[in-house]
């Protein structure tokens, strides 16, 4: 094992961690070939480990490549260089152990809420009756017990996210990947969805990688907030543990002095990056 890992260019120090490390991005870089033949290095070689039961929020200015890193863990994007290890095994293809909550509309519009959740279970090999029963119970847990037969277009944006959450959690994945899942929602709905997520997560504490550009949301939800710099050549520039007691109320916690203190410390780092991002965007325009 050790020799093999060394042959793959992975330091032995990291391999030892793989027992409690759910996902490990090691020197992962993302480079795009542009139409004019040049290269654009979106994400510089980055290393990030997510431990069992850990809720990690990845925060950065818009367009810094944080969603791309998430997609690498999901197996939807192959890194240009570096490796992604899932429970110590190199990932190739779709990450079957992960549940992914998308920012954009991801429900199948031709299926009802119930069928959308049940189909993910049927794919896992559950008999139809059992799948439907479990889907029903999960939709109940996310507060949609009365909306089982609705089609996605008959639900509000927040309700559709709840269906998505049930769809992901019902399959009992070993880790959760979330790409600004509550981004398109209004502020009140976001707070409620954050609370719902924390409540469900608290039950079995799966590892979570939560991408957001909202620092407050990140601190309110996560155990660890990782800050990325503005692209190109985006990289991790800060890694802050969040020492707020659990279980938390995703909304109330924002009023605690410790929250405000943490927010101030992280914002100092993030602010510079946001300004840098604006400056680059303006340069590009000029």
């Amino acid at each position, binding site marked *: 094992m050790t020799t093999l890992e060394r042959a793959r260019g992975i330091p032995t120090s990291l391999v030892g961690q793989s027992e409690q490390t759910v996902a490990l991005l090691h020197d992962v870089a993302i480079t795009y070939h542009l139409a004019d033949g040049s290269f654009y290095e979106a994400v510089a070689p980055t290393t990030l480990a997510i431990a069992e039961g850990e809720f990690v929020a990845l925060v950065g200015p818009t367009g810094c490549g944080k969603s791309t890193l998430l997609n690498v863990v999901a197996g939807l994007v192959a890194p240009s260089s570096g490796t992604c290890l899932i429970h110590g095994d190199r990932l190739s293809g*779709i990450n079957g152990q*992960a549940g992914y909550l*998308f920012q954009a509309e*991801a429900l199948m*519009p*031709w299926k009802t809420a119930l069928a959308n959740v049940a189909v993910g279970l049927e*794919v896992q090999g559950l008999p139809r009756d059992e799948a439907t029963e479990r889907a029903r119970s999960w939709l109940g847990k996310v507060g949609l017990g009365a909306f089982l037969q609705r*089609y996605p277009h008959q639900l509000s944006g927040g309700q559709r996210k709840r269906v998505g959450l049930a769809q992901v959690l019902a*399959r009992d994945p070993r880790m959760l990947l979330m790409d600004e899942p509550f981004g398109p929602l209004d502020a009140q709905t976001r707070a409620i969805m954050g609370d719902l997520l924390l409540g469900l997560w608290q039950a079995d504490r799966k590892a979570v990688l939560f991408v957001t550009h909202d620092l407050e949301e990140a601190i309110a939800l996560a155990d660890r907030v990782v800050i990325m710099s503005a692209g190109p050549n985006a990289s991790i520039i800060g890694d802050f543990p969040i020492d707020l007691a659990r279980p938390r109320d995703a909304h109330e916690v924002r009023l605690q002095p410790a929250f405000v203190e943490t927010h101030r410390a992280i914002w100092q780092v993030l602010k510079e990056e946001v300004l840098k991002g604006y400056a680059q965007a303006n340069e590009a325009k000029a």
Partner: protein
Amino acid sequence: MKRNGERRLGLGLTAWRLGVLALVLGGWHVLTATGVLQPFFFSKPLDVALRVVRDVQLPRFWSDLGITLTETALAFVIGSVLGILCGFALARHPFASAVCDPYLKAFNAMPRVVLAPIFALWLGLGIWSKVALGVTLVFFIVFFNVYQGVREVSPTILANARMLGMKERELFRHVYLPSALSWMFSSLHTSVGFALVGAVVGEYLGSAAGLGYRIHQAESVFDVTGVFAGMVVLAIVVLIIDALVGWVEERLLVWRPQAATTA
């Protein structure tokens, strides 16, 4: 949307529609009765109505109608199946699609009427030459819609389905097929209409039965009343089929937001 609008307008709309009909029929009647239009060339609305009433009492009329509807149904089913198969095959294989593209465009641009005599030569004067003509019309509508439906599946829905563990077979069943069928269903009005056009045009150009044949027969003996009677029957058939298609569509596309339906 339009349906709701119709309901809101309610009786007013119906009154206006009947008004337009009365105006056209009344004008026609007055012009032919006063001799401004020659009844020999333009017939009279009352004569046409009486002819329709007389026709529907003939057993021959119903067998002709049955033949036309059979041809329509066969053309629709065969054309749809071929369109779905080809649409899927080409949408999933971009290279094959690129190879076939110019030929499909060329064939689709061809006026299908010119094929009718060839089909009559190949398949005889029975129903199959008419079915073939209808198939060439239906095929392209279904094909282009299915092709588009498979290609236009939202990348997020596809990525989500793959994250849910779906492989090619399940993706086909739960994602590609429903998307393609929804595009196909939204063009049902057009494809069913074209199936009927294929049948009638085919009959008109050479056959011994069907609604198109009746019109052709009347025309060849300068029986203008007979021609108009055939057209009225055809119009009624189209309206009935269209209402049926609308009813089917409403049930198949319940999941669609109202604004997106073509009804």
